[in-house]
């Protein structure tokens, strides 16, 4: 624009009074955003749906995985975290497999604060549903020699039947784990059940419940150490020692367990706390969770693009409104604010709906899984915040287009 000499010479002192600035209060801006959507309710709702789906997916994924973790922790709480598992580790020399000495159980049980100790030993025999089956068909079941205290030490439960009775028996008995029972098709309610172990029949007297802290027992057929010694030449070297200690002294017991189990080569003994592994597994986000979160993010993005798209159209349609507002004193900044607020209000609607939907999904899924329901507040707040950020970004371009319109162009009848 060319500025004439007259124009450049004129300034403040020639002007009769100071101009008051145009204003747009926060409340009025918010009101404009809401009123702007009032005229196109259906469109605003549809536009918000994209955001709502994205936020719902994200909130549900966060809520469900939090509930799942809460469930694991609650289960652990119930099972107890005061267990240690002692197993032979790697041989330092690397030649033969290390073994725990037969007297390790006795020594471990003498430690201070240790409440109960029991061992199992892996037996090199094959179990089958019947002698007619080929020896390869073990259905994944392994045979373990179990000490009488095993069940009480692990605080385990029998689903049906009873535990291996102490003392010599006239005929051999076996107790099997939950998974093994399912795979072998053993059901005590259906009458006497037999398994072919080594080269003779065993009577199944009990079926265990699942043992989350000793999952290796779920796949096992357990026979008593006496029977193992008599029939399969068991030498007394345990492969796993289960140890229960008082919860307050776990660290102390853990520190000395290896040296107590095998004083001559403590480096070849592994001591683990099974609850740690469960906890760690619960804490890691699975690939599936990540995938769902990613999908939620994509939905959110698409929702944002939807808002931007609808707002650009809205700016074109409302050119006259923009012109009128400019004529009534609105600055470019006020116009930009108005359209930005409109985008934010739409996104916030979607965000709130999404958070509600995501919470409902979390609660519904948690109830159906019988989990403790955990809806993380940070996740909800984050959901609304994410929606607002997306809305703000989506509104930026249409809002600045609206602000850039020249007033004289904007007031021309469409």
């Amino acid at each position: 624009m060319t500025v004439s000499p007259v124009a450049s010479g004129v300034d403040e002192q020639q002007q009769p009074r100071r101009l008051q600035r145009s204003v747009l209060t926060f409340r009025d801006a918010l009101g404009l955003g809401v009123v702007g959507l009032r005229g196109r309710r259906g469109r605003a709702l549809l536009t918000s749906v994209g955001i709502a789906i994205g936020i719902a997916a994200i909130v549900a994924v966060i809520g469900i995985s939090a509930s799942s973790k809460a469930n694991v922790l609650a289960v652990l709480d119930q099972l107890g975290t005061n267990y240690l598992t002692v197993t032979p580790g790697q041989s330092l020399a690397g030649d033969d497999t290390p073994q725990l000495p037969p007297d390790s159980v006795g020594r471990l049980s003498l430690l201070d604060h240790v409440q109960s100790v029991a061992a199992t030993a892996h037996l090199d025999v094959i179990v089958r549903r019947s002698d007619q089956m080929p020896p390869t068909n073990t259905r994944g079941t392994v045979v373990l020699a179990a000490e009488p205290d095993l069940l009480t030490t692990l605080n385990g439960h029998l689903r049906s039947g009873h535990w291996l009775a102490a003392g010599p028996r006239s005929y051999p008995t076996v107790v099997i784990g939950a998974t093994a029972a399912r795979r072998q098709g053993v059901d005590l309610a259906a009458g006497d059940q037999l398994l072919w172990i080594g080269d003779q029949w065993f009577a199944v007297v009990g079926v265990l419940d699942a043992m989350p802290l000793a999952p290796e027992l779920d796949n096992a057929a357990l026979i008593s150490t006496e029977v193992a010694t008599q029939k399969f030449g068991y030498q007394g070297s345990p492969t796993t020692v289960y140890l229960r200690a008082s919860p307050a002294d776990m660290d102390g017991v853990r520190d000395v367990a290896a040296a107590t189990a095998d004083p001559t080569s403590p480096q070849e003994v592994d001591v683990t706390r099974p609850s740690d592994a469960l906890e760690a597994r619960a804490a890691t986000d699975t690939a599936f969770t990540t995938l769902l979160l990613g999908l939620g993010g994509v939905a959110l993005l698409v929702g944002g693009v939807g808002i931007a798209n609808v707002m650009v159209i809205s700016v074109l349609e409302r050119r006259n409104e923009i012109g009128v507002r400019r004529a009534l004193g609105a600055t470019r900044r006020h116009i930009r604010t108005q359209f930005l607020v409109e985008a934010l209000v739409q996104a916030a609607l979607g965000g709130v709906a999404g958070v509600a939907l995501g919470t409902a999904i979390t609660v519904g899924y948690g109830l159906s899984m019988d989990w403790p329901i955990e809806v993380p507040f940070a996740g909800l707040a984050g959901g609304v915040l994410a929606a607002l950020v997306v809305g703000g970004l989506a509104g930026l371009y249409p809002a600045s287009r609206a602000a850039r319109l020249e007033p004289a162009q904007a007031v021309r009848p469409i």
Partner: protein
Amino acid sequence: MTRPVLELVDVVRQYPGSPPVRALDRVNLTVLTGEWVAVIGPSGSGKSTLLNLMGALDQPTSGTVRIDGYDVAGLDDERLSALRGHSLGFVFQSFHLLASLTAWENVATALVYRGVPAAERRDRAAAAMTRVGLGHRIGHRPAQLSGGECQRVAIARALVGEPALVLADEPTGNLDTRTGEEIMGLFRELNGDGTTLVLITHDPAIAASAPRRVRIRDGRIVASELDGVTG
């Protein structure tokens, strides 16, 4: 009544293009407080261009536009907007009411950017509606009003801020003759109450209502007539 509300000095407005269109060519015009001026000219003569410049909606290519004492060339967007909001009222040919707002909300919008509190906006909007004879229609939406009523709402919106100057571009263009005359009667009344008016029209009958008439053709003022008769 001698203070100039509007001064145009050697105003040129040229639209870029090939060839460029010189919509206004060295226009000189002064409007004093309390005056009622009709700008009349055929289609394409530059009337709307002139109104945009008078309303600080547009800037001249050269020359000076002074509104209520302010040279628009020296003002940034903030101040131009403030000048429009505080000193000017606009009435457009196609009303330009906001469809999602009620009549009184449309009127009150003129006070939003002046920072008038919401309660006071409502009262003043209602008063302006009464002044244009629509006190019984304040809660209606534009879609529920006739064309004449819509134009009255638009006039109330232009008046509610008590501007130094009201600019109207073909305010009766979309109305039938009778309704147009009613609207002209309303303008006459408002001018009688002291409102300064510039009214743009291509209709000589409408222009005849104004005590002062400026004729424009091809972007130039070709005649300026003043009669002593009002009404």
